[in-house]
């Protein structure tokens, strides 16, 4: 069998590339391992660093679930507290961030259901209307002229947030993770323990619901 130098070089390069891929796929490209390890040994500073790294994202997820700063703050605190208390259960077979956002979505969903049962969103909605003195009907965007300004307007932001709040919890969590926080389908499927196909179909339905709400309010 005749083996050319190019073949050997190609094989060598491929092998090197594969070796380079192994550690990153094992840890999932996650540089939190060291911090998590230190944290598990009781290093408070390491935990603080993890909090600083993820607080904005966790807070945003929390906010999208409950739509209220104070509630979001309490929820985000609860999420980190749960992570801290259960760190010994983190087996390291997924990224720390995946594990953390799994906690975040579970807690977020539970908090949303709890607040909904207590009429939190109904009361807040009527309160907001009283305070603002304006409803959605005043927002009449001209989609052909300045879509950028429209999308960043406070009213549109509120319409979208309200549309998210009205979603079923199972749909809401996927929209938050995928369209707002930008997690991959694979990560979401792992976090929610769902097949990727189910994740995609739920997301599609959720997007269509939000689209209809926007259409209804803005048309």
């Amino acid at each position: 069998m005749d083996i050319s130098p190019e073949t050997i070089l190609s094989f060598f390069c491929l092998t090197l590339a594969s070796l380079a891929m192994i550690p990153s796929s094992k840890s999932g490209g996650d540089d939190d391992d060291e911090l998590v390890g230190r944290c598990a040994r009781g290093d408070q500073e390491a935990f603080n660093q993890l909090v600083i790294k993820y607080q904005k994202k966790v807070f945003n997820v929390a906010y999208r679930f409950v739509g209220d700063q104070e509630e979001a703050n309490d929820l985000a605190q609860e999420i980190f507290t749960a992570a801290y208390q259960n760190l010994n259960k983190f087996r390291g077979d997924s990224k720390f961030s995946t594990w953390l956002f799994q906690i975040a979505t579970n807690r977020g969903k539970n908090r949303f259901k709890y607040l909904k049962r207590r009429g939190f969103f109904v009361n807040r909605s009527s309160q907001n209307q009283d305070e603002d003195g304006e409803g959605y009907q005043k927002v009449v965007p001209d989609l052909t002229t300045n879509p950028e300004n429209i999308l960043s307007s406070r009213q549109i932001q509120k319409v979208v947030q309200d549309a998210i709040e009205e979603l079923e919890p199972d749909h809401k969590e996927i929209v938050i993770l995928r369209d707002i926080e930008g997690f991959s389908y694979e990560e979401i499927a792992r976090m929610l323990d769902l097949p990727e196909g189910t994740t995609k179909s739920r997301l599609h339905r959720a997007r269509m619901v939000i689209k209809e709400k926007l259409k209804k309010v803005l048309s």
Partner: protein
Amino acid sequence: MMDCENVSVLFGKIFDGEADEADHKVLEDHLTVCSACNEDYNWYKLTMQALNNLQPVSPPSDFLEQLNSRIHPKSKFASIKSFIKNFLDSVPQIPVPVGAVSLALIVVVAFMAYNNTPVDTSLAIAPIAGARSIASAVDGGAHINRVSQSQGQAAPPPVASAPRLPMLAANQAANTVSSAPVWRFPTIADEIGGDNLTVESPRVDLAIESLRNVLPNLEGKIVDEKTRNSFGEVMVGVVIPSNKYADLASALVNHGSVEAGTLQIEGKALIPSRTDSNQLRLYIRFTRSSQ
């Protein structure tokens, strides 16, 4: 040509970057001939842009501090320390010693105010047959008081110039207690948890001797005895049959520890604070009268 429902599924694939060239072609072809789907696609696009452009919200600046105090709550002692520190820091114009003295004064006043809270005698004595009272026997410089159990506080000795009979009846005694809530140092009764009778006498030793003489007739016995010389108080623990409680006070009078003229006791007005089947344990505090 693909139907509208299947075309809408392509929207997601397009925006997730998962559509291939064929998908793009199918969509474009459909949108050129179907105005409804074309409008729908524009709304879908707007929805995706709106979702991706949601402005991030920021956690409060002290998020980490809040979290740490939630995970590691400060001990009570640390809270008190921090309160004192904040208190002193908040009044920088006052010298630290003055601040500390003020704080101490506040604590003492608060403590005294707390101890001056009127005692609810209904808690001290469980009534039977409607009687709600403090037992108080006074005669010739000696008196017997019912001592509060739940408050751990002896009723103050009445200052009686003339012999006064202790009534187990409710109203009179209740007035006695509520009208004179005076702060005092803890007594032996408080330490032991004694809660039954106080015998005030110019001769504590004679009074106790009388008690020793009385008890055999009542089938009772002394089970505990403590003294505090500096206050001239003696606390005697006694066990008697439950139905002999009223007789005990009468017997104390009859045997000289209390020189009563007439002693009125509603025999079953009091429930013993501690019972062992039909045995009653009570504590009698003997204290020297000022006379």
